[in-house]
């Protein structure tokens, strides 16, 4: 157990830092520090391509597919330097961090050759087609169907809460391929092109007035027969494996975004004297402690993912960061006071602290509500009895 970096690792950190700082204070200064996920999408596409051009798009991937075979520590270093430099949220997070590794694990060589270069090059943006209306966190209740028609799959149904679908070129879809199947059985995992008439995206306006999430409608949408990842009926397993990558090194990048948010709150508290309020100070300390414990928890997960004790840390991570972030939003608006309620952000929208307050409410809902997470922890980590389903 060791926290410090070797001289080689320190050199790598300097390389990352130099490259990122140069970009963020140079040709990409206009998108430095952008937290908002839907702002300036074209510039962020440029940024994805620039990362790729200089070899920083997916450093953890194999060299064969445009990566650098980076060690875990190198990935940690890059993720942290990335956020520290104020580089924007990755428009292609889903591609690089989730579907890419899943295709590496489950894809045929042909599928890999067809999909990975576009992701690595920053050209193809991906989104995730899991949630459905009425199904919420219950993946087994999926009703979107895909039927075989010659050399193609034909997809009908609806997805919801699809983040950034309005910018995506591709979507990975969990659909029911076995007619009449129920629950986890009969699902398959499909890679679908968004640029076709059968796919329609409707943005969902959120409580902060913006629209990161979307509904995606499939009406006779099509993908080639060999766009099925894994084997037919293996959709549940592939979908679940993909979720496992959510706990990868990108968690550290997310944490550095959190760090930037906390820094902004600290700055506000200093500016309006909230920093002199002992109660606010307690909450700032709690946020600081919680963030550090997320960091060290993530390092535990990443350092030895196979150890039993560490897998419990992985299981508890979603509710930990989601609840932490929601509390940070509450702290943000309390520090801002009434001034935080005035819409004086860019384009007449919410300022960053108010937006954080509103937006962070989604964190404990999507990707498995806190309630679902507690069930999982109780059942898988503590061995308590499973919840009774009403329909079994």
């Amino acid at each position, binding site marked *: 157990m060791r926290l410090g970096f070797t001289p080689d690792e320190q050199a790598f950190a300097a390389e990352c830092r130099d490259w990122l700082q140069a970009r963020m204070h140079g040709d990409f200064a206009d998108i430095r520090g952008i937290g908002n996920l839907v702002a300036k999408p074209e510039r962020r596409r440029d940024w994805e391509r620039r990362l790729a051009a200089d070899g920083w798009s997916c450093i953890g991937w194999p060299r064969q597919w445009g990566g650098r075979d980076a060690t875990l520590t190198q990935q940690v270093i890059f993720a942290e330097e990335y956020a520290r430099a104020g580089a924007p949220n990755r428009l292609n997070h889903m591609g690089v961090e989730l579907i890419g590794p899943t295709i590496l694990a489950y894809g045929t060589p042909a599928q890999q050759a067809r999909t990975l270069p576009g992701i690595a090059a920053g050209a193809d943006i991906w989104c995730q087609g899991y949630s459905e209306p009425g199904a919420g966190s*219950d993946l087994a209740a999926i009703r979107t169907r895909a039927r075989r028609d010659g050399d193609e799959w034909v997809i009908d149904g609806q997805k919801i809460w699809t983040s950034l679908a309005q910018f995506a070129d591709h979507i990975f879809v969990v659909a029911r391929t076995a007619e009449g199947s129920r629950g986890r059985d009969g699902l398959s995992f499909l890679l679908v092109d968004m640029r076709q008439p059968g796919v329609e995206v409707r943005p969902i*306006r959120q*409580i902060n007035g913006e629209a990161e999430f979307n509904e995606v409608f499939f009406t006779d949408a099509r993908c080639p027969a060999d766009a099925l990842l894994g084997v037919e009926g293996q959709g549940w397993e592939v979908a679940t494996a993909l979720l496992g990558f959510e706990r990868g090194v990108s968690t550290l990048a997310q944490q550095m975004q959190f760090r930037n948010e906390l820094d902004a709150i600290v700055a506000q508290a200093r500016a309006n004297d909230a920093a002199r309020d002992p109660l606010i100070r307690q909450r700032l300390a709690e946020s600081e402690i919680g963030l550090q414990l997320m960091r060290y928890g993530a390092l535990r997960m990443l350092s030895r993912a196979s150890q039993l004790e560490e897998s419990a840390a992985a299981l508890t991570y979603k509710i930990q960061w989601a609840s932490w972030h929601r509390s940070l939003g509450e702290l943000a608006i309390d520090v801002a006071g009434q001034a935080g*309620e*005035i819409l*004086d952000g860019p384009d007449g929208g919410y300022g960053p602290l108010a937006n954080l307050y509103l937006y962070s*409410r989604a964190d404990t809902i999507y990707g498995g509500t*806190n309630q679902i997470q507690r069930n999982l922890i109780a059942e898988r980590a503590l061995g308590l009895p499973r919840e009774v*389903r009403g*329909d079994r």
Partner: protein
Amino acid sequence: MDFALTDEQRMIADTANAFFAEGATSARTRAAMDAGGLDRELWRAFCGELGLGGIAVPEARGGAGLGMVEFALVAMAAGERVAAIPLLGHIMATRAMRDDARAPLAACLAGDAIATAGEADGEVIADDSSVTAIADFVPHGAVADHLLLLDGGRGWRIALGGPGVTVEPRATMDATRPYARIALDRAPAHTIPPDAVRQARAAGLLCLAAEATGGTQAALDATVAYTLERQQFGRPIGSFQAIKHRLADRKVDLEQARSAIYWAACSLDEGTSDAGTAVHAAKAFCADAFTRMAADMLQLHGGIGFTWEHDTHLYFKRARAIAAMMGSSAWHREQVAAALLDRAA
């Protein structure tokens, strides 16, 4: 001692509930949100046809001659529907105008003129007939005709149509009660006596606490209904114990919030020595209870509650606004602590 509502009080509550249930619909409130946060037709009907504009004003001054208990029942009803009406500023300003013969009370009670109230931010320079000050967050300030400006124990009444007044509307998170920034530069002002200032502020805090309690009730009702209807894993989610227990806790909150409202309102009406503590307690407790309930409403509605189309965010934002207005809960609790710790041992 009799701590139950009288039949007349129940009738007032029923009338107000029916009025807002019919008038303050989601569609009308959303229309008002795009129009300065004011449903003027609803407000006129409230003041005129219903005659509730002067509920707590003496009959001799054209009011209904009732008290803070009756007003609180009405404010709870308005809060239940997140009505876009200038009730807060109205109760504060009219409370301060009661003993002021030259005040435009009649027009305000009739709903023809709109009165509001706001705290001064920063330095206030005043002489006998004018005031120079800035109030940053005046509720419904952009649609108001009269302002009650407060600064500690001092207060002034100012006609907003007069000289030396600059009103800057501000887009506000709770669009049912938007703020305005009002700058006064030697604006003509009528001084309000300290006791009226105290009463106005107490009425305002009670109004916020009562609105919060009404909002808590409505949010709880809506959430219970949703959890009974929404199915997950083949069961209504309201059958899951974690959700049952969460909502049970909110029900416990709600019952306490009601007790807080009645305590504060009765204490103000009867002028008891603990009225100040009661009002601080009510503001802190009811605002916090509403904040918790609105947060749970959002969480338990899942994704749908996170959309603009659903009314959840109206309650969520109203709860936030109430929590931040006229002193945070922590500040009000500190006042309660000071009273407790300064009491002779």
